[in-house]
């Protein structure tokens, strides 16, 4: 039915099967859109946020998708600026994931603000000293970079490519892609970092506050580094997911292993820095403010010291070891464990740096603030996932996302 749109020679499931799948996910998407509409029309009273807990589940989702979407800028940097040419076989996927993640993040931010119609104030009346201002500017600009990176792939659709103008445009955009990729990496360093800075500058919140360099707290650098380190883990996870669902190999092992190895070394260096940061914070920064480490992990029903262990050991040291040791990295099962733990680790870090920050009491007579999100919040948080599934499925079906697909299929 839609075979004329499918890349030449590529095998795709029958259209009715595809359409059914999209319809199912589409229903979830509509549920999310309905919840989003409620938040916009009736206001944030639709959530379970309160004055003690002003950052909701979806802000965590926002930070998490930006972190795991970091594969786009980092892979782009490695391919176009550092010239690691093998990564051309996975860069398309990284770009599509990045595009989905960043468009989702912008959507979440638009739902999260109390006066969405005034959202442009953040640009117009920008307070340049606020980390959130830096986030908004860099995020929007980087999203335009991702769009620029995504366009050539769309133009490579079999039918669009027949139009000479689009064919030439795609070619010409590729020819200057290094400039766009470098700009994207520059912007990403700042927006990933400033997202870390959002928590790190809060000197009224000893759980979040970190010293730093010039105007940037250490969390600024840790966030940038972790997004670059863990982003590729998510790119690889989605690759594996695609290979599992389609039951065919889409990217050659050597490409996967190169990205896994780079990710492994990045995670290793990141987790060393993170451990040093944690030790300094636990023994110097927090005590100066009157807190012991255990104060942040006790007297409540959820946040125990386990969360620190899970983040650093399970989500950091374990994937770092697996991905850096060749023998482990090239074992498919261990590789899968490592990339999944990597994604888990960075998401948990973002959780801690957003939600636990809100939960920890600061005044000596205050209590822990724990909150359970409302269904509207859960639906709006799932909305980007459904949107992402639909967009990436469309991209896989109609665009040459995996350049090695045909070759691997023929070899089989």
């Amino acid at each position, binding site marked *: 039915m839609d075979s004329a749109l499918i890349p030449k020679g590529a095998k795709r499931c029958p259209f009715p099967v595809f359409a059914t799948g999209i319809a199912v996910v589409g229903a979830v998407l509509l549920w999310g859109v309905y919840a989003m509409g409620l938040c916009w029309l009736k*206001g*944030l*009273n639709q959530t379970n*946020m*309160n*004055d*003690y*807990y*002003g*950052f909701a589940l979806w802000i965590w989702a926002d930070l998490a998708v930006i972190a795991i979407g970091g594969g786009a800028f980092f892979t782009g940097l490695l391919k176009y600026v550092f010239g690691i040419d093998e990564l051309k076989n996975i860069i398309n996927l990284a770009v599509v994931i990045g595009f989905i993640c960043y468009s989702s993040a912008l959507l979440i931010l638009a739902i*999260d*603000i*109390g*006066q*969405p119609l*005034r*959202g442009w*104030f*953040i640009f*117009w*009346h*920008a*307070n340049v*000293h*606020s*980390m*959130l*201002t830096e986030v*908004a500017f860099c995020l929007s600009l980087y999203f335009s970079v991702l769009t620029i990176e995504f366009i050539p792939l769309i133009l490579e659709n079999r039918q669009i490519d027949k139009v000479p103008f689009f064919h030439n445009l795609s070619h010409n955009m590729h020819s200057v892609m290094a400039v766009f990729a470098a700009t994207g990496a520059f912007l990403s360093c700042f927006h990933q970092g400033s997202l870390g800075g*959002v928590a790190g*500058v*809060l*000197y*009224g*919140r*000893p759980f979040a506050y970190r010293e730093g360099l010039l105007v940037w707290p250490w969390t600024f650098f840790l966030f940038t580094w972790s997004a670059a380190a863990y982003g590729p883990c998510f790119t690889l996870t989605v690759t594996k997911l695609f290979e599992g669902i389609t039951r065919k190999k889409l990217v050659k092992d050597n490409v996967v292993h190169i990205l896994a190895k780079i990710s492994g070394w990045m995670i290793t260096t990141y987790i060393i820095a993170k451990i040093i940061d944690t030790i300094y914070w636990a023994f110097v920064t927090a*005590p*100066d*403010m*009157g*807190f*012991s480490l255990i*104060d942040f992990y006790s007297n409540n029903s959820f946040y125990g010291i386990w969360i620190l262990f899970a983040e650093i050991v399970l989500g950091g040291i374990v994937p770092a070891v697996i991905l850096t040791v060749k023998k482990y990295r090239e074992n498919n099962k261990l590789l899968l464990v490592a990339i999944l733990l990597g994604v888990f680790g960075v998401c948990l870090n973002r959780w801690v740096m957003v939600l636990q*920050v*809100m939960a920890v009491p*600061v*005044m*000596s*007579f*205050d209590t822990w*603030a724990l909150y359970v999100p409302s269904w509207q919040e859960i639906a709006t948080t799932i909305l980007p996932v459904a949107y992402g599934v639909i967009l990436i499925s469309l991209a896989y079906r109609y665009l040459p996302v995996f350049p090695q697909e045909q070759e691997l299929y023929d070899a089989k």
Partner: protein
Amino acid sequence: MTQDNHGKAYKFGMVIDLDKCTGCGSCMVACMSENNVPFKEDETNKKDSITWMKVFKLTNGKPFPDTDICYMPRPCMHCGGKGDHGHSPCVSVCPATATDYGYDTGIVSQIYTRCFGCRYCMGACPYHARYFNWWDPKWPDGMEEYLSPSVSPRMRGVVEKCSFCYHRYQAARDRAYHEERRDNIEEGEYQTACTQACPAGAITFGDLNNPEHEVSKLVKPDTHQCGKPRNPKAFRLLERLQTNPKVYYISEREWVRKAGDNYRDGEWEKSK
């Protein structure tokens, strides 16, 4: 006007004598009616109720007969921020410049029509002094007639907080100009609603930069240490975070002063 708050500008502040406070809540009521603070039909969930001035109840945690209770009124602290340079925790993070530090008064403002409701300032404030309008204000029939014309009501989706009754400062300043006193405002001319409403006289308000004002006499702020009180019975909430609040508390009771900040084991004894 200076940029460091140590010069001739005003530095309005408040001193609350916790040993006098009975926890009656008059300050809260006065504040709400003075500033058109909205309320909900059902106020059982206190975590989304707007209380610019909130009275916390503290106990010493001891069993009877040694139990002791302290009521602690908490307005916005109007923090001077690290080094008292005006970079309050909330002001420095607001992305849209919707909250600002007045170097001429030391008051942290909130511009409701500028705020777009990101709530970052609420996350930054360790005192929970900032409140979000989760709903549009809904006044019972006829109550609009009783709203203060000097204070604009706020709409859904923006953050609000105590302004030290800034409209009263504006009125006092206007009067002073009119009477050709420039901006020379007398101590009694500008007082907040909570100060005037407190039946126990627990709240004192005035200019911390003026040694003649009662607030200065009570706490003796040390200008070389960002206004840290020299009166040993006085303290500021969370002094160790270096937020440098302009609200001071006084208590003869040691456990109350200790509750004003966080101390690790043995630290309090050493700090005495």
